[in-house]
């Protein structure tokens, strides 16, 4: 037996063993049923392996047995926090295949709905992120406002989460009388609330300490991993499909004035009305992703106002949805739309019958999540919820 001459050495030399820690699938900060296997040495994580598939519901296989309109309800069950955006993406993709143009009124109706959905979805993203970092109250404030949007959506189509409202050819119904006024009064009341959120989280010293400078995704990494939406723009890549996408989609936003929320030369557009970027934050970190979402909420309010004006001026019907058993032309079409969580793509292949030969959903969160293994290497265990939360994932969409 060897003897230790200095007892101090024994005291300081506390060894830690490498350990595998299972995080999830039932972990609140994994946003659903994501399982992460962490290889840790004390508090340091050396490797993260995500395991998916707990919510796999064979949606694509089901899509090969249903007509597009029948499959529409399955799309909103993928990203259940942004059902309207999913319905819209699928409808536009099928319309592209059929070369079907919706009426002017339906176009503006879709913008109103899609942007309201963006607000609702980002509110969850923001509230839940606060929850991940240990601050409970912003979550309640966020859900209070989101509840009002869900009430508005309920009035429009009867459902609160799984809408199936926007469909191939337009929407299933027009807005009920007086709805636009209610929507406007909501926006008016909501605008000052955004400043409260900034006070609660964006400029909160503890919040900044927890997420600034953590989980930095470089521009090249974001592009290579196929990250989209706020994750991509948070890394400083100037891309928003509402402006840059395919014509079939950008036509929907024709005539709307908006700026892509991305940092250019150290400034965000309109940043004079917002809290300044703290010096700790690095472009591409968790804080920037959160900030981009918050600015998009404000931008969506503007877009809804513009859309309401256009909708009021537009004439005609809100489109008549195609027959459920409408035959599809032979061919294939792929279309990506800017959903709240990123670019949601749908791919449809048709052999000429009413039921598509193949449907595929390109999930935005699937690509956004694939960056985690690289991102969480050599971080602290406590930072993992801060990084995963900032990606704002929905497992229903990843597993499909």
């Amino acid at each position, binding site marked *: 037996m060897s003897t230790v001459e200095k007892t101090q050495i024994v005291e300081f030399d506390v060894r830690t063993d490498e350990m595998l820690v299972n995080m999830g699938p039932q972990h609140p900060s994994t946003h659903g049923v994501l399982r992460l296997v962490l290889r840790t040495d004390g508090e340091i994580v050396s490797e993260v392996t995500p395991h998916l*598939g707990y919510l796999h519901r064979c949606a694509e296989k089901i899509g090969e047995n249903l007509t597009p309109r029948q499959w529409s309800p399955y799309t909103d069950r993928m990203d259940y926090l942004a059902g309207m955006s999913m319905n819209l993406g699928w409808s536009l993709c099928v319309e592209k295949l059929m070369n079907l143009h919706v009426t002017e009124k339906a176009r503006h109706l879709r913008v109103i709905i899609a942007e309201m959905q963006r607000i609702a979805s980002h509110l969850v993203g923001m509230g839940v992120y606060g929850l991940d970092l240990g601050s409970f109250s912003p979550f309640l404030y966020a859900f209070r406002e989101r509840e009002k949007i869900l009430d508005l959506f309920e009035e429009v189509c009867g459902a609160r989460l799984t809408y199936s409202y926007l469909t191939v050819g337009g929407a299933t119904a027009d807005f009920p009388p007086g709805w636009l006024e209610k929507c406007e009064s909501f926006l008016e009341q909501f605008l000052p609330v955004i400043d409260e959120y900034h006070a609660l989280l964006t400029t909160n010293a503890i919040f900044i300490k927890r997420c600034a400078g953590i989980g930095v995704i470089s521009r090249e990494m974001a592009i*290579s991993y196929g990250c989209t939406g706020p994750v991509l723009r948070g890394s400083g890549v100037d*891309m928003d499909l509402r402006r840059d996408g395919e014509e079939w989609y950008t036509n929907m936003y024709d005539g709307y004035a908006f700026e892509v929320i991305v940092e250019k030369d150290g400034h965000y557009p309109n940043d004079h009305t917002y809290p300044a970027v703290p010096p700790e934050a690095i472009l591409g970190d968790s804080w920037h992703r959160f900030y981009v979402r918050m600015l998009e909420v404000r931008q969506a309010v503007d877009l809804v106002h513009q859309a309401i004006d256009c909708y009021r001026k537009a004439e005609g019907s809100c489109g008549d949805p195609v027959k459920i058993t409408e035959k599809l032309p032979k061919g294939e*079409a792929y279309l*990506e739309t800017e959903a709240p969580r990123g670019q949601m*793509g749908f791919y449809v292949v048709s052999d000429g019958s009413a039921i598509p030969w*193949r449907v595929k959903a390109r999930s935005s969160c699937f*690509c956004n999540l694939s960056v985690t293994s690289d991102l969480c290497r050599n971080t602290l265990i406590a930072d993992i919820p801060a990084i995963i939360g900032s990606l704002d994932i929905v497992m229903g969409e990843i597993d499909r």
Partner: protein
Amino acid sequence: MGGQDLITQLKDHFGDQIRDVNLEAIDPWIEVIPEGLIGICTFLRDDPQFGFDFLSCLSGVDYFQPDPKKAAKVDWEPHLELVYHLWSIANKTSLVLKVILPRWKDGVVDELPEVPSVAGIWRTADWHEREIYDLFGIRFSGHPDLRRILCPEDWVGYPLRKDYEMPVEYHGIRCR
């Protein structure tokens, strides 16, 4: 530069490695032979004129009609198709690549067809290829970690193939 010019130029550059071109489709596509895939993809990504730095989507399609009556009417031979949807952030253009594979390697059932992995070109292909391996049974040679992603690791069969039959039970759970 329009999509058509791009494709013509690509054809001049790669010749035989591009087997087919369809410019009339809604999204014009080119078909590439599996052996030429890596070369073409690297070129498409790195050449500034093309600049396809973003792999939007990678999907598989199974062309196989299990119903013999309907199979007599179709105008294609059974095959698998890989569809690569590319996007260039700088040029704001898209391009569709296709690779056609046999349903089974050399016609031997349960021998998976192979195609080179593009995970080294676009990192996002890593998970997409795992998904296709999982659901279609296509092996991506050179993939860093090819295992199932959505289905459990001990799952049998490739669910998105048209002749797939759900197993009767899985670990004592009745499936159908």
